[in-house]
């Protein structure tokens, strides 16, 4: 039971720094370009594993020693409230901030347990912690700004090739990142090791438990951790190599500094530090040095608020949990477990619902996209169909025209041949009267042919089909027009001259002019208006 409680506490308190803080360390390395170097590719995982296991074998830890001043767990039963309070407070802070201050929450939860058990907290220890928590980010920002300025001054007047400069900075970044990882692990290892000190196991067993927990958590967290890592490398650290190097060095120095007894000389405590807070502080420091904002003011405020909220909540949670457990023994423990389960369920439900809402939104937007595409596709189809129909109609008309033209030629030829034969027959007639009668008949048939009534009717019929829309609009707008006037308007719209219209309508050009005049008056046009332009505009 004790072992389970410890493992549960490690999982609860340890998974959050892995999720939120480790991407900052890894992201800084990737952003510097060192991630593609063999030294990082092969040595980095080895170093990470060592950093996880080694603290269980090293007794010397000023961070743990200072924390012992607050509370040293002597019973495994009290380990659970520490883990739960840390995890709960960090989760709540993490709902509105990217970097919840997990180590601060952890220290505050120890203080909460101490307060519940002893009824007081050592004021000097509490003060030294608060002082350290304020000093660490400030120091980090100052260091980052200073290192950046140092780079700028040292390379300002030197002609150095960009590739050489980059290679040097990358080398510095690699060394600094090794230091950062080691110092970060050493500094934050208290979250894993401190709890196990209450248990009868440490050393190899403790290391195995930590490694086992890491292995269990890895498949669940790998995706999220690598996504957050790339996010930090690509967006937060989309800056020059000098700035990235300054970020890594300043964070490493501050972690090293606060993992040693040195802060005690300034009345501060060796304390575990949240890497996210230090990261935002370094970005702020570099922004000041470069006079260009690298981080939003809102992000800085959120991170600061989270580093205040996390320890405050953790203190409260740990105090309440221990009080309930101490007063109600088994019933109290069960009550706490139920409370914790409800809280965990609430958090998971909130996250699940957020995820579901997001998926719904994505689905909705995709449906909208599909609908819009389908709509435009249908419009295109309709347009294409109409165009096709129009083209088919035109083709049909042209075909008919061609057939008519061929028939007309044949007809004309037949008529001419017949006429020729008849004329020859008339010439050979001996009788004058009969000759005259035959000639008259021939002339009348020729006149009839000249007026080509059938062809004209065909022409009008075809014209009406082609300009059906115009005829409809004309009839609608001017219902008092006669058929002849409509024909005239149609011919004028097609651009025929008065002379040609006269021959088409079998009237004299003068009559055409008179008809045009009548049409103008019926259309209500004044002298200055252009008739053809007006007809075309209908």
């Amino acid at each position: 039971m004790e072992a389970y409680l410890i493992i549960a506490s490690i999982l609860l308190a340890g998974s959050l720094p892995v999720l939120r803080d480790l991407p900052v360390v890894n992201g800084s390395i990737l952003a510097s370009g060192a991630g593609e170097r063999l030294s990082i590719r092969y040595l980095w995982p080895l170093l990470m594993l060592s950093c996880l296991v080694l603290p269980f074998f090293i007794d010397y830890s000023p961070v743990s020693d200072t924390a012992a001043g607050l509370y040293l767990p002597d019973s495994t039963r009290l380990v659970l409230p520490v883990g739960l309070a840390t995890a709960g407070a960090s989760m709540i802070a993490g709902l509105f901030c990217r970097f919840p201050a997990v180590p601060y929450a952890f220290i505050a939860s120890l203080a909460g347990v101490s307060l519940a058990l002893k009824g007081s907290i050592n004021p000097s220890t509490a003060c030294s912690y608060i002082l350290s928590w304020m000093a660490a980010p400030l120091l980090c920002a100052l260091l980052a700004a200073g290192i950046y300025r140092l780079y700028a001054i040292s390379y300002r007047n030197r002609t150095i090739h960009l590739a050489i400069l980059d290679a040097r900075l990358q080398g510095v970044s690699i060394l600094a990142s090794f230091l950062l990882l080691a110092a970060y692990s050493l500094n934050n290892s208290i979250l894993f090791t401190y709890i196990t000190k209450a248990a009868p196991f440490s050393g190899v067993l403790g290391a195995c438990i930590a490694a086992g927990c890491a292995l269990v958590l890895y498949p669940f967290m790998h995706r999220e951790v690598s996504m957050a890592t790339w996010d930090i490398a690509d967006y937060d650290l989309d800056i020059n190599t000098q700035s990235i190097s300054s970020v890594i060095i300043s964070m490493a120095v501050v972690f090293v500094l606060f993992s040693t007894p040195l802060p005690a000389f300034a009345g501060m405590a060796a304390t575990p530090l949240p890497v996210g807070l230090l990261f935002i502080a370094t970005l702020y420091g570099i922004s000041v040095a470069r006079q260009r904002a690298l981080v939003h003011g809102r992000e800085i405020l959120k991170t600061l608020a989270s580093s205040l909220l996390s320890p405050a909540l953790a203190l409260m949670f740990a105090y309440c949990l221990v009080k309930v457990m101490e007063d109600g023994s088994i019933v109290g423990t069960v009550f706490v477990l139920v409370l914790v389960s409800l809280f965990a369920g609430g958090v998971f439900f909130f996250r699940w619902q957020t995820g579901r809402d997001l998926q719904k939104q994505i689905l909705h937007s995709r449906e909208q996209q599909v609908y819009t595409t389908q709509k435009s596709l249908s419009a295109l189809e309709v347009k294409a169909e109409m165009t096709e129909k129009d083209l088919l109609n035109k083709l049909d008309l042209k075909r008919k025209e061609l057939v008519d033209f061929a028939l007309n030629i044949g007809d004309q030829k037949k008529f001419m041949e017949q006429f020729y034969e008849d004329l020859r027959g008339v010439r050979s007639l001996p009788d004058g009267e009969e000759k005259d009668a035959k000639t008259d008949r021939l002339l009348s048939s020729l006149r009839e042919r000249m007026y080509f009534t059938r062809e004209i009717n065909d022409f009008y019929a075809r014209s009406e089909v082609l300009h059906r829309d115009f005829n409809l609009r004309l009839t609608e707008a001017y219902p008092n027009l006669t058929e002849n006037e409509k024909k005239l308007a149609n011919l004028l719209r097609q651009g025929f001259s008065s002379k040609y219209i006269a021959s088409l309508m079998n009237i004299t050009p003068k009559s055409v002019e008179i008809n045009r005049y009548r049409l103008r008056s019926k259309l209500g046009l004044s002298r200055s208006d252009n008739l053809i332009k007006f007809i075309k505009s209908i």
Partner: protein
Amino acid sequence: MGLFDIFSRKKADNLIGSIDKLLGIVDHSLLLFRDGVKNYLYRDESDFIENLTSMASLETEAGAIIREIESTLYSRGYLIRSRGDIMRLLERFDHIISIISVDLVQFEIESPNVPAGLRKEFVKLSELASLAVESTIPGTKAYFTRPGDVAETTDKVYFYEKEAVKLSQSIKRTVFHNMVNDLKLSEKFHLRYFALHIEDLAKAAVKVAEQLSVMAIKRSL
């Protein structure tokens, strides 16, 4: 590269060497281009063919160097913040080498009939276009060492490009207005086409200069 050669300069030096070599190839190509155009115009066929052969081998060499630089930049994590821009710049230089090569090949294939009166203008045009490209080389070197000096060289590029465009227009005007009866319409079009191709070289140089200006600004941020 070993595990522990964290501060090794070997790869960085190789990279610098490759970039310098590529710029050297661009410079050499420009010399070949000028010489090639002159040889074609003054009917020195054997030298012109030699220019063509040299240009083809330079083009192949440039391609290989660019691939090598790309591999170093992307597999070794060098210049991670500016490698995209650097590759774009080098590709623009590769494009310039292609333009030079294609222009010479087109002279060889199409054999344009350049009237004697226009030879000097064509030689001058090729020189102006080459000067525009040539001016980008110190600018590129300055980007890597002293980004503040890039602006000085880009001004020269813009000047030579403008001069090249002016001369190209004057050639076209002469061809279409003053040689109405001397040349067939097809020959006029052909000459205009070649003037445009040489002008393209100057325009490619301007693109390099623009890219350099953007990169220099990015470095100063």
